[in-house]
């Protein structure tokens, strides 16, 4: 395996860092099939953590369990939001999980195709705003202020992901890479402390991947949002993540720093035949 050149110095995690998400023995069964088998995982503030594994290893299912799309069969999902009480969120509806502060993107892009780019991001603000039907009808000063605030925040986010020029374009008309970035902006609009990215680089060309690389690192460093990502692009994973978890057939087979993972025989075996450096 050739060495990859990290674009930023990865720092080892100090023991004192605050844990944000703590998953203990998460298990998910579909009928007789165990898609996720007792997987445990921690993410601390300021970290970029990657979850890797061959296709069908159960990574997306794990995501779905954590974000409330599926109700896990067993195990605990605990969140420790900064400055708030710890909560056990198994079985919470997705919108509650998002409201607590964990937002996600999707492996198969799920944008609101027939809404504008700006509106897509504005949906992310939904859970942070309060206008109700009455407010919307009368459109009083509070509503107006809130609306303007939403627009401002969303423009800022679009700027961060480089999509301001497309603000009034329909989401479906964006090029592929831009759609992926829009998904990230939309998730960021929910004010998360943890962002879960499901294969953000899938289908991107090398330049786009590189830009994404930088974007993710920037989000983590300047926005103080921790990141958990599923990714197949090993170069990206090795470049930016501080810790890596590896899954195979629903089980966690390894965890550690990129260097550990690279030399872990189990991981090499799991990826046997697959080009780890693809």
């Amino acid at each position: 395996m050739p060495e990859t050149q990290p674009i930023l110095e990865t720092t080892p995690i100090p023991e004192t860092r605050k844990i944000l998400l703590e998953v203990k023995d998460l298990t998910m069964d579909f009928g007789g099939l165990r898609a996720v088998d007792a997987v445990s995982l921690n993410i601390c503030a300021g970290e970029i953590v990657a979850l890797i594994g061959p296709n069908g290893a159960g990574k997306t299912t794990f995501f779905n369990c954590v974000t409330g799309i599926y109700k896990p069969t067993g195990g605990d999902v605990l969140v420790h939001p900064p400055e708030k009480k710890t909560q056990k969120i198994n079985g919470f509806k997705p919108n509650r999980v998002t409201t607590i502060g964990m937002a996600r993107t999707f492996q198969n892009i799920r944008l609101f195709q027939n809404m504008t780019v700006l509106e897509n991001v504005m949906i992310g603000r939904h859970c942070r705003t309060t206008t109700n039907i009455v407010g919307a009808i009368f459109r009083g000063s509070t509503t107006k202020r809130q609306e303007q605030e939403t627009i401002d925040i969303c423009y800022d986010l679009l700027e961060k992901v480089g999509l301001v020029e497309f603000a009034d374009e329909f989401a479906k008309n964006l090029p592929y890479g831009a759609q992926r970035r829009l998904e990230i902006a939309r998730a960021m609009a929910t004010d998360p402390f943890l962002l879960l990215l499901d294969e953000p680089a899938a289908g991107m060309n090398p330049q786009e991947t590189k830009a994404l690389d930088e974007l993710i690192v920037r989000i983590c460093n300047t926005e103080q949002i921790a990141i958990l990502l599923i990714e197949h692009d090993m170069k990206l994973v090795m470049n930016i993540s501080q810790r890596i978890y590896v899954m195979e057939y629903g089980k966690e087979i390894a965890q550690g720093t990129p260097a550990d993972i690279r030399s872990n025989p189990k991981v090499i075996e799991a990826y046997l035949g697959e080009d780890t450096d693809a």
Partner: protein
Amino acid sequence: MVDNFKRSFLVALWFVFLTFPLMVVKVNTLKNIVEWRWINMLWVAIGAFVLSLVWRWAMARRQLKSKAAEIGEEGLVKPGLGQRLLEDPKVFKPVLIVLALVTIVFPLLVDIYQTNIMVLALIFVVLGLGLNITVGLAGLLDLGYVAFFAVGAYTYGVLNTFWGFGFWISLPIGGLMGALFGIALGFPILRLRGDYLAIVTLGFGSIAKIVIENWEEVFNGAKGIAGIPRPGFFGAEMNIASATTYTYYLMILMVLFTIFITNRLKDSRIGRAWMALREDEIACVAMGVDMARTKLSAYAFGAFWAGLVGVVFAARNTYINPNSFTFMESALVLSIVVMGGMGSIIGVIIAALVLILMPEYLRAFSEYRMLMFGAVMVLMMIFRPEGLIANVRRKYAGRTVKTEEANA
């Protein structure tokens, strides 16, 4: 070209075969007579031939369009002429002024009969706008919408016969009852996917009619409720003519009111959530939108308008019976929404006026109207799913600072 004609010829033959027993043969089993209507065969052949040519031409165009969209050039495709005119303030403003004037003087120019029909058309405008919220914005296909219309009409009918409630008190009650039924029926079907929802709402629509038909004590069954008073005006005595004119202006106000409120909601946090729900339910909840609330509010809000104009409908007719609330009415309102362009307010208004007024003024057409509605629904879905007038996306105000950049 020759090949094209050959194919159309074959299509014509196929349709001649297909329609032969139903179009050509007519048997009277009581008198044992067979009537052979050979002339119909000719019409079918000609019709099928021409239509298949048009169909193939339209399909080719559609393919071109979708190809353009695929390579990401759809944004460059020019919007239709009507749309551009509508967006041009130079055209839009005078048109609006003329329309407003015509609307105001309309009842003075025509007789009561015409005014009365116009009132009906306006009622359907509001129904269309209401259903547009549920179907067009929130993407919840409701095939039993007429049930809420019936709720409103019967609310007034029953309140009036039993307790002598007047129009003005019944109006808001009718609307609220509509919304309440919307919520009550919405609850059990929250989890249902789009197509199941359609069939269940269809069921609710039918149940509503059956209940009204059979509950003699309250709804007076199939006989219906008669003698419902027209809208009052501070207790003033009015003859039929002036009451009709009055109802007309009332409906104009109500249409404006509906447009105002719907517009406000559409461009709000709530309206955006409805649209997001329509676009992608899973992404919508994953972005923190409460699905149950959003669905229920869309459902209830759509139903509210049906309940509200239901009251007006009862007052206009002064008589209601279950036959005004069949699936045909639901289908009619749905075709208004589909034809007008889902989510588009102007489109819905135009479609409602066309679909209600056309059969009234073109008697020959009225016989064929359900046939046409059906065909229109199919053709619209295939060739113009965005409706006559596509929903124009609102451009939001820029940022408080650096506004120029937003418009770049």
